[in-house]
């Protein structure tokens, strides 16, 4: 027994060192399977508050840029609104065309999305998995897995939630892929290489698909994002010789360097859909 105590005393530092490293490795491994603990993230109240205070100061430097982006978004939304308010020249009045019909006699039924605005209080572009912290949490109805978009395109997915803050795993992350489609409907995945915040990749596109530089890439209805949100535009098309498939390089439409306001999108039908899909998987 005495020898054992002596042994412990002699190697106490080494044992403590190894113990702490094991704790760290367990923590890292636990966050990697997407079920991280919320306490040790920027959704944590104390950390969130500090970022909020910092953002209150830095906020003013970006006002001008933000105004521009809001004006652009307004213009875009007005343009879309114009499609719904077609002018009837015979009756000399604006006719409201209802495109979305929800009664059960029609087949078309649209998923219900709720948009909530949120302010970005912290954001990064330099890590291998980048996070955006926003000032809305479970008290405002934000839940894990909701999609986050900005006025100009996609941003990411909510991963940690506290009462008043949430941290969002951005598209600039090596552990997240987003289902995407080209103009003609070919679908694929958009992912990030992990180094440059202004380049996204779309791999494994068949050669016969017609893509040009400047084509827009949108989200599909398969993923947690709402359909037809802009992801980016193609700026380079490369042919991979090994498997004769195309590799598209995209410029993301969202500027991740100066995010200020984002929308958190709740898909009210997602729970039901997942339940159905899971039950199908379980049967197999």
């Amino acid at each position: 027994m005495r020898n054992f105590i002596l042994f412990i005393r002699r190697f106490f530092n080494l044992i403590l060192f190894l113990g702490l490293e094991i704790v760290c490795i367990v923590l890292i491994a636990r966050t990697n399977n997407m079920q991280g603990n919320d306490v040790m993230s920027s959704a944590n109240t104390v950390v969130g508050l500090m970022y909020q205070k910092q953002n209150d100061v830095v906020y003013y430097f970006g006002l001008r840029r933000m105004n521009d982006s809001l004006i652009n978004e307004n213009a875009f939304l007005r343009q879309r609104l114009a499609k719904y308010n077609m002018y009837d020249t015979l009756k000399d009045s604006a006719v409201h065309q209802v495109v979305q019909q929800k009664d059960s006699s029609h087949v078309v039924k649209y998923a219900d999305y709720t948009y909530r605005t949120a302010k970005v209080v912290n954001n990064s572009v330099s890590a291998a998995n980048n996070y955006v912290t926003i000032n809305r949490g479970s008290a405002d109805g934000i839940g894990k897995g909701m999609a986050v978009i900005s006025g100009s395109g996609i941003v990411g997915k909510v991963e940690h939630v506290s009462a008043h803050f949430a941290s969002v795993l951005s598209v600039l992350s090596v552990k997240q892929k987003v289902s995407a489609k080209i103009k003609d409907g070919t679908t694929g995945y958009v992912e990030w290489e992990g180094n440059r915040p202004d380049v996204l990749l779309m791999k494994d596109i068949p050669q016969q698909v017609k893509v040009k530089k400047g084509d827009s890439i949108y989200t599909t209805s398969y993923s947690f994002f709402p359909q037809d949100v802009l992801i980016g535009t193609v700026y380079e098309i490369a042919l991979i010789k090994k498997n004769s498939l195309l590799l598209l390089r995209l410029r993301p439409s969202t500027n991740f360097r100066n995010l200020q306001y984002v929308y958190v999108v709740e898909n009210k039908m997602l729970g039901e859909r997942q339940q159905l899909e899971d039950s199908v998987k379980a049967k197999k």
Partner: protein
Amino acid sequence: MSTFVKNLLRFCIIMALQVLILNKITLRWWSQPAGFPVFIPYVYPLFLLLLPFEVPVWGLLIIGFLTGLTMDSFANTAGIHACATVLVAYLRTNVLNALMPKNLSEYPNQSPGVKNMGWMPFLVYSSFLILLHHTVYFSIELWSFVNIGYLLLKIIASTLTSMLFIVAYLLLFTRQVNARS
């Protein structure tokens, strides 16, 4: 000022500097044409390097672990920073023993610094441990050696920039100590 209060203050200052300012400037020297990695200088391990000589290894380990966890909560990287700082804390005493002419117990109430170590030994001491920290951190963060060149470039560029900031910190704060004594 007691050593404890002094170190607590230093912790707050260095952490605030790291989290609120350095984490926001993502340096990308010639990023666009050359595909140079975007990186952040991590200066906060300097706090561990400047702890007094007489702190025992187990104390260093626990302080290092807590420092890493604090940084992890800010950067959303559960455990990666802690992993690197614990290693730095563990090796600190050995590196100091190798660099200092006398036994460490013969420096009561002193902290490693330019004043009692000289510029060259201190730079060797800090750059070695910072390089170690960055190597561990970026290796775990990328979690693959497929882009080994990219990884090395990121480590070296980050270490150099971190050292630049550390030298600036030393220049600022050692002069103050001289003027007071």
